[in-house]
């Protein structure tokens, strides 16, 4: 990246019926918003496995945005409610991991709300810029080094057992 | 319920009758008005016209004092005060540069303002919080047969119509009906009273006043009722000049709180009804 200023990386999961279509509408309407979000299309926000979110953060995302249909409007009747339930649990997990819960965001954006795609993305980029990088991959390396040195110190006297590095 | 009461200059001067009537009326409805300590000019008209930011500083000092006073809401009976205080709240919220200047100025006086205290008009509180059913219960001498032209003026609905329709406010209409009066349909209810023009450019200013009075008479009103001291003053004080220029249009103009007081059976003198230039006898008689 030639740009010396740090840019947040945000992975988004948009349901194809509402939010993905809304993002298409934002495009057709030539609305302008920040280029930090990479959208992955799913059929329903209910398809978003918490593992996807954790995996994205682990692979270097600074934030994850999930977009679904408004309550009562899910194309599949109730997938968005399922996502909402999972999202609440996910937030607790993030807190336990010491990750700011604001980094993972769930938004209801209907197919008509191109404008909302724009404002949500711009707002999220601003907020994550203010929070700074999450850098989980970097932190993993750091933790690994710490673990290594700890284990190294612990196993030093016993030559017979080799440290079991992860 | 206890309110911080911001009287402004009018209610201590030309609009004394407004203060004299609002305090007992609110008391009768179970609301206590606690006058703000060391309040200053609200920053209206002249200040606003010359320097909006400085006017906001004036207004925000009052808001800061009110916040310190600790009552949940501020009551501003004068429409000009009501508007300027609310306008300042909007400016502080919408414009960081204005908020910056204001906060700097407040700091020098060891004051802060968080922007949370609502500024309410007594008409709003009376009609929407206390409610017409509670009012009806307080009526001792219904204003039967009294024909009232409700006149709201501009500042209560422009630019912010917070508690009533911008084009056709009806709070006072409903209130007077609850008091037993007959309300005249008055299409000029939000038209300009002439404002400060009556003092600076009398001719167009007085024309505004004359149009309102004449229409009220034409529609058979016995009295014009208003929510604003400047409106009351303009509609009440220039009858001789209007008569000299066009034709006599003598009709009394009173505060809505005075009519409430009469209906509640209070003494007309206690309500300041003797202070008007145009005799208000018919009001008292009709009520009696």
């Amino acid at each position, binding site marked *: 990246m030639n740009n010396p200023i740090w840019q947040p990386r945000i992975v988004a999961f948009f349901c194809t019926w509402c939010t993905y279509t809304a993002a298409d509408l934002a495009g057709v309407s030539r609305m302008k918003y920040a280029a930090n979000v990479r959208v992955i299309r799913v059929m329903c926000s209910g398809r978003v496995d918490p593992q996807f979110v954790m995996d994205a953060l682990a692979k270097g995302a600074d934030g994850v945005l999930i977009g679904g249909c408004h309550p009562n409007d899910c194309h599949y009747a109730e997938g968005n409610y399922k996502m909402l339930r999972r999202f609440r649990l996910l937030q607790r997990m993030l807190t336990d991991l010491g990750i700011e819960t604001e980094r993972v965001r769930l938004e209801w954006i209907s197919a*008509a709300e191109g404008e909302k795609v724009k404002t949500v993305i711009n707002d999220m980029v601003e907020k994550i810029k203010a929070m700074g990088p999450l850098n989980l991959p970097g932190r993993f390396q750091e933790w690994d080094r710490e673990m290594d040195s700890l284990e190294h110190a612990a196993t030093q006297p016993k030559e017979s057992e080799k440290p079991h590095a992860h | 319920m206890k309110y911080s009461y911001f009287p402004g200059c009018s209610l201590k001067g030309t609009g004394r009758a407004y203060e004299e009537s609002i305090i007992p009326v609110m008391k009768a409805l179970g609301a206590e008005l606690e006058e703000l300590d060391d309040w200053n000019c609200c920053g209206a008209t002249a200040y606003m016209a010359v320097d909006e930011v400085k006017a906001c500083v004036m207004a925000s000092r009052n808001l800061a004092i009110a916040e310190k006073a600790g009552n949940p809401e501020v009551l501003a009976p004068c429409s000009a005060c009501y508007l300027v205080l609310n306008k300042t709240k909007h400016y502080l919220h919408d414009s960081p540069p204005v908020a910056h200047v204001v906060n700097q100025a407040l700091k020098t006086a060891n004051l802060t303002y968080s922007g949370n205290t609502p500024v309410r008009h007594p008409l709003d509180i009376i009609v929407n919080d206390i409610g017409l059913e509670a009012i009806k219960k307080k009526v001792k001498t219904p204003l039967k047969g009294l024909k009232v032209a409700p006149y709201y003026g501009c500042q209560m609905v422009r630019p912010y119509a917070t508690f009533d329709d911008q084009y056709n406010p009806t709070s006072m209409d409903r209130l007077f009906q609850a008091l037993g009066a007959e309300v005249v349909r008055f299409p000029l209810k939000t038209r300009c009273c002439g404002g400060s023009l009556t003092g600076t450019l009398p001719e167009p200013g007085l024309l505004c006043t004359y149009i309102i009075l004449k229409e009220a008479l034409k529609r058979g009103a016995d009295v014009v009722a208003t929510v604003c001291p400047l409106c009351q003053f303009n509609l009440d004080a220039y009858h001789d000049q209007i008569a000299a220029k066009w034709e006599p249009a003598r009709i009394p103009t009173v505060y809505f709180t005075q009519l409430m007081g009469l209906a509640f059976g209070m003494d007309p003198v206690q309500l300041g009804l003797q202070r008007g230039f145009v005799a208000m006898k018919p009001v008292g008689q009709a009520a009696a």
Partner: protein
Amino acid sequence: MQMDNQKAEVRIGFYACHCGSNIAGMVDVVEVAKKAGKLPHVVLSRDYKYMCSDPGQELIAQDIKEHKLNRIVVASCSPLLHEHTFRTATEKGGLNPFYFHMVNIREHNSWVHTDRQEATEKAYALTQAAIRRVAHHKALEVKKVKIEPSVLIVGGGIAGIHAALTMAEAGKKVYLVEREPTIGGHMAKFDKTFPTLDCAACILTPKMSTVGSHPNITLWTYSEVAKVEGFVGNYKVTVKRKPRYIIEDACVGCMECIKSCVYKEPKFADEFNEGLGKRKPVYIPFPQATPQVVLIDPETCLQLKTGKCKKTCVEACADRHAIDFNQKEEFIDIQVGTVIVATGFKTFDAERLPQYGYGVHKNVYTALEVERLVNASGPTGGHVVMRDGQEPKSVGIIHCVGSRDKKTNRWCSRVCCMYSMKLAHLIKEHTGAEVYSFYIDMRTPGKGYEEFYDKLLEEGVQFIRGRVGEVTDWAYAPGEDGKLVIRVEDTLAGYVRRIPVDMVVLASGLEPHKDSQDVRRLFNMSCSTEGFFLERHPKLAPVSTFTEGVFIAGCCQGPRDIPDTVAQAGAAAAEALVLIDKGSVELEPNTAYILEQECSGCKSCIPLCPYTAIAFAEDRNKAVINEALCKGCGTCVASCPSGSIVQNLFEDEEIFKEIEGVLAYE
């Protein structure tokens, strides 16, 4: 088959589309293609002007054969627009169409970003994601669903009528459901239509009676759709029939009962005449109503209200026995393959703008009321007289009431300029009154519309440009006493004018129905922000919705005039006919299946499925997904604790690879 995929070497072909300058103007597609060419498994990478063009598609097919490609990725517009196109091209090259994946670098990128470098980086990141993902794609087979050769049409206005007749003539079974007691909609209330001034009834009522008698059409008026289940090709619909207290098959439309009602004179506000006329508790909305069946209003009928009436109507009906005071709501289930929603509009409530005095001044009318006044079969027999019985000598027509206004509705209602001019012409013709028309902009886009405007200018209608401030009875200047004064800033003359008139007509705009949100949910459609139903694509799929097999026509999609409505209704009927005549529809093979060897039999997926597609095989202690019932949302996949559910096209591995790809850029 999966084993074959694993074994074969993955050979990806990548194509970056310029889309003229639509993409290339903001994204360096040449650079993206160059970098993508160096990624693992990519054996061919090209950029091309228009991938969706014939040569573009041909290129893919050719390359597959020449370079032995077995995966295709195209970076261009939204998959919602062209995924099908490129899948077909992939298939043409001899590959399974699902070995294709699409990258959206137009709607989600070039059109919404302003920095070329950032946009190019994003395009490359999305490309990497697709390339990593496509390697895991599997060959899939499309599922075909049979289409029932029948259609449900909701709404019996001109749109519903036209669509019903088109479909019925093509030999398909049509169920037409209308909420009101008669079909005809708003058009039935009009006197003339602009700009040709043909008589609305003369062109509409023959179509109405054809609907009533067509062997292929089942007409249910005074009825509503209560429930919709199922999917394209096989919708199960429940229709609620409200009691009209008349047995439809027994009523011959003789109207003897109306004549003999205990109310000798009509007494109640007549809805069809906008309350300007009166009707009895037993009535027929208007003489040409279809069906020609009376109904009884339970709110005003003495028998239904109090149970005490001489029931002279029953006597008059005699041996026909058509009156049934015990009639109850009835629910009917039907099966249809397709649906056309044509529920129309409601007019803006003029009382929301108190400055125009509707409801306060008795001589302020809405345009729809005036439509009834000028109508020869209206409450005044076509005489334009005001509520006080006087003929107006001057009339002011105010345009854009509840249109083009941030405080009410922001949109232009499209028809008001034209219908205002039509009414101006008719009022002038009927009364010779001076007519003033207050407009903001005169909008006359349509065949013969501008010419109609010219005609009215010549007829001497006074056009004043300006949004009216208020209508008041405050008389100030001489000649204003007893009149309604229209205060307006004449923006061409540059000053505020007071124009006294006898009668004011408010050209109310068009709005979605109050319950449009309920109707939308019923059919799983979307609404635009203002509440009109959302079309699948504003240009390329204007009568389709996001729900397969459900089409929209007429003003429920947005304000439009009669010619456009009829054209749209025809289009919706044609789309429905295409589906029916094709006999079957291909469904996206995105269903889920269970890997039995991994399923632990925990049953957590079973209650999650809104379609009850997951069953439990007690003998094997495994969950089983019924593919025919699965709609492919993937909710069960995301919640399976052992990861033993797989969704075709959205497999975990594919999505993990996508995540890896979008984050792989430097």
